[in-house]
């Protein structure tokens, strides 16, 4: 961690109030985010217990499963959730703009895309598992599920996959958003608790953040894992529900049928609502705090990539031939995913420090950037470089700086304020930096007008230069080489193979826990 970021935590601990960790918001924030607060049953691989969901802070929808181990109820819950989520997720596909591409066909990109906010990183994992457990379900045959269920699975899978792409904003955890913007006086591990994190940032009136955080600890958890103490309270409620269901199956009094079961279910819903509502309120409080921050200059550009990904995915869904995402990626797609994420990470790192003076301050402290005032310019300077016949414009720039960059002679630098400019270090001595400008001046015999900075300008230069790397040409799947296991079997020919893509019922369709 940079000493500058560490100072933020120290100051927060000493004052009792969170401190800025960024001067801008580095993620896109939708005007109408879909907030999702999920709970799952402890001990199970994936058994949804409840969600609070909605786009209106005043109208949360509670979807609860009174007996999460009951397969039918589980899928009824998934169908209900699909009913809430799918209209919103699909709503942005219709309005598009046409984007021209060099060397490729133009494509349609939606003007906006959905955004889902969950409390913690666990919520992202929840969507991944929701996707995995529903996208292969059949809508016909013996274990048929409602049509929305596999569709929800494919959307959830897209969201969770996309969340792994650095800088993406379609699915975000509130704790990540808040810790990017603020430093608390507790550890990163404790910041994983949304209640105490938010208490540091936004304590109740008249309270200090540290006090409020301590009080918030041990309260209802933001999930998706439940608090064991809450589970102790839930056990008798679920037992009562099971008994009600069993009793009513045997009862033949029409009047009483359903009433006991309904009451038992209501008791479970009440308990869940009480446990989930504080998190719901915190989610929206977080949205308010984040909206008050200005977005970084590059945020819109990265959101464009999300919009493009959304459009491609929505178009694929609409194709009747398309299949659900495979259980695990094949060798080629895994490699392409890794390469794509590394490119996104490089872009994000470069853009964030340029957008945010506080992040750039850490780069300056590490000696990889400096900020200084231009005190002398020789705009006429021409240099004939070794191996070249003609002299090229190489303006000389002399800066005064209090920074202590560790650049050796010849280091190439990029400029924050003048993104086209490229310069090379000539002399680096304490307080003074001599650079020669060699790029961003046009191809002419003299620099193009306005391309040479003028005396008095205060500029920031860094050796962290994001290289544009083209995506490599990956082999076709059927050309997977022998070093990587050779071509995978045709989909469907070996249903047990790890790369099988066909929808097939899992065993858990058949099994039920008692």
């Amino acid at each position: 961690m940079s000493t500058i970021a560490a100072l933020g935590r120290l100051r927060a601990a000493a004052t009792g109030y969170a401190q800025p960790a960024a001067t801008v918001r580095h993620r896109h924030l939708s005007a109408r985010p879909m907030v999702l607060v999920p709970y799952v049953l402890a001990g199970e691989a994936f058994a949804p217990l409840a969600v609070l969901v909605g786009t209106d802070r005043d109208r949360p929808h509670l979807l609860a499963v009174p007996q999460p181990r009951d397969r039918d109820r589980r899928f009824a819950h998934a169908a209900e959730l699909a009913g809430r989520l799918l209209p919103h997720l699909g709503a942005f596909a219709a309005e598009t703009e046409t984007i021209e591409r060099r060397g490729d066909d133009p494509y349609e990109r939606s003007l906006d895309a959905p955004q889902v906010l969950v409390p913690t990183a666990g919520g992202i994992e929840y969507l991944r598992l929701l996707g995995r457990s529903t996208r292969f379900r059949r809508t016909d045959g013996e274990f048929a599920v409602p049509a929305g269920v596999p569709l929800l699975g494919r959307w959830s899978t897209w969201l969770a996959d996309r969340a792994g792409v650095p800088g993406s904003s379609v699915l975000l955890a509130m704790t990540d958003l808040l810790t990017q913007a603020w430093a608390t006086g507790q550890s990163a591990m404790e910041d994983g608790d949304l209640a105490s994190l938010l208490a540091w940032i936004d304590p109740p009136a008249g309270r200090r953040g540290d006090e409020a955080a301590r009080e918030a600890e041990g309260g209802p958890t933001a999930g998706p894992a439940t608090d064991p103490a809450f589970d102790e309270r839930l056990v008798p409620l679920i037992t009562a529900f099971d008994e009600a269901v069993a009793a009513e199956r045997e009862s033949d009094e029409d009047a009483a049928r359903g009433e006991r079961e309904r009451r038992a279910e209501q008791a479970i819903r009440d308990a869940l609502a009480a446990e989930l509502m504080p998190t719901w309120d915190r989610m929206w409080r977080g949205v308010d705090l984040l909206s008050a921050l200005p977005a970084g200059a590059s945020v819109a550009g990265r959101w464009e990539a999300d919009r493009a990904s959304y459009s491609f995915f929505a178009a694929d869904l609409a194709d009747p031939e398309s299949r659900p995402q495979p259980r695990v990626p094949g060798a080629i797609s895994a490699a392409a995913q890794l390469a794509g994420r590394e490119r996104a990470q490089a872009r994000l790192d470069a853009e964030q420090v340029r957008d945010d003076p506080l992040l750039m301050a850490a780069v300056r402290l590490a000696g990889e950037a400096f900020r200084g005032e231009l005190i002398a310019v020789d705009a006429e300077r021409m240099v004939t470089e070794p191996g070249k016949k003609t002299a090229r414009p190489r303006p000389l720039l002399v800066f005064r700086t209090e920074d202590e960059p560790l650049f050796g002679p010849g280091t190439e630098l990029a400029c924050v304020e003048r993104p086209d400019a490229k310069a090379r270090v000539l002399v680096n001595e304490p307080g003074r930096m001599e650079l020669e400008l060699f790029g961003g001046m046009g191809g002419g015999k003299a620099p193009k007008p306005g391309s040479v900075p003028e005396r008095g300008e205060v500029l920031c230069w860094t050796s962290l230069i994001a290289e544009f790397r083209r995506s490599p040409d990956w082999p076709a799947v059927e050309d997977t080489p022998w070093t990587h296991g050779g071509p995978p079997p045709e989909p469907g020919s070996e249903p047990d193979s790890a790369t099988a893509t066909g929808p097939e019922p899992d065993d858990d369709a058949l099994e039920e826990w008692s």
Partner: protein
Amino acid sequence: MGTTGTTGAIAGRLEQLRGELPTRNHNARTVAALAANPGCARRGVLDAAGIEKTVLAERLGFPARYGRSPFAIGRGNVFEARVKADDGRELRRLLAEVLGADPDDGALVDVDRGGPTGPTARPGREERVARTREALLRAASGDPDACAILDHPLLPLDVAGRRAYLEPDAMACRVAGRLHVVEIKSFAIIDGSADPGKLASATRQAAVYVHALRGLAEELGLDPESVSTDIVLVCAQDFANRPIAVVLDVRRELATTRRRLARLSGVEELFAELPEGLTFDVAEERVGAAVARVPAAYLPDCLSACELALFCRDEARACGTGGDVGTLGTSVRGALGGIDDIGTALALADGTRAPEPGQEDVARLLRRAQALRHEALGGVG
């Protein structure tokens, strides 16, 4: 190794610290947890004395927020029973799959059942250890290809001079002349991967069993290396409760376990620093002061590994001027070049305090960092 024991004087010292406080029997989980924060003297002393830290934490007014969900416990039990059911049929199938054992050969010996007091009575601990030894010897001398399974074995292990009894929910199986520890966990392996944290904790526990089993084998005159460092982990597959087995290499964790146990026996050095006559068995209002006599090394990771963590965190936040930087995590601490006190670090950054000899470099770094932070925040940070 491990049975070197502690001297009588040390045993007396531990006795005194403990007083009438309830003690805890070490199990694989607590022995595995010794690897967390080994630099903490407080934890070392309490573990060596075998004090039940949950009770101590309550007396200190900082009850631990631990607990397992009844749903998780229920599912774990059901899963384990299913794997072992029917004379271990399912388990045999899995062992055949991953180790190449013959599923139809070899007996399942339930160490916990039967005996002189009747077929259903549960024997005492030493009795079960004796039966485990006997069953091991029998298995070792039997057909090397037979898949002999020991259910409910009890393994003795010397932890800082006190005898602990490890009760694998798992079993020791002998396949092809080698003994393999089997761990049964109900968490899921989905599409070939599982939660790395849960896997790590299962691996650490299994390593403790391997260590104890090697000790037992040595006592019995068997080759300790015949206890394999490849353990079998049985988990649930995907979203179903069908069991699946994987083999895990626990060599790293075994080395760690040995180091930590050896270190625990070196608890004498810690006592040299403690006041004579110190005991934790005192009235509630004085227990905090007594515990505070043993220095702790609190870090945020303690919150998930030690019952006393909330007490130690409170203490660390209150110490010095502004608290200990360790409370903010090791990455913050690492950025401050050895300044341990929050107030001192800030005073150096603000230039309101002159650096002591040896602090000049870090003070300069802090002042520059503060100046840059101030500039970036437009003069408000």
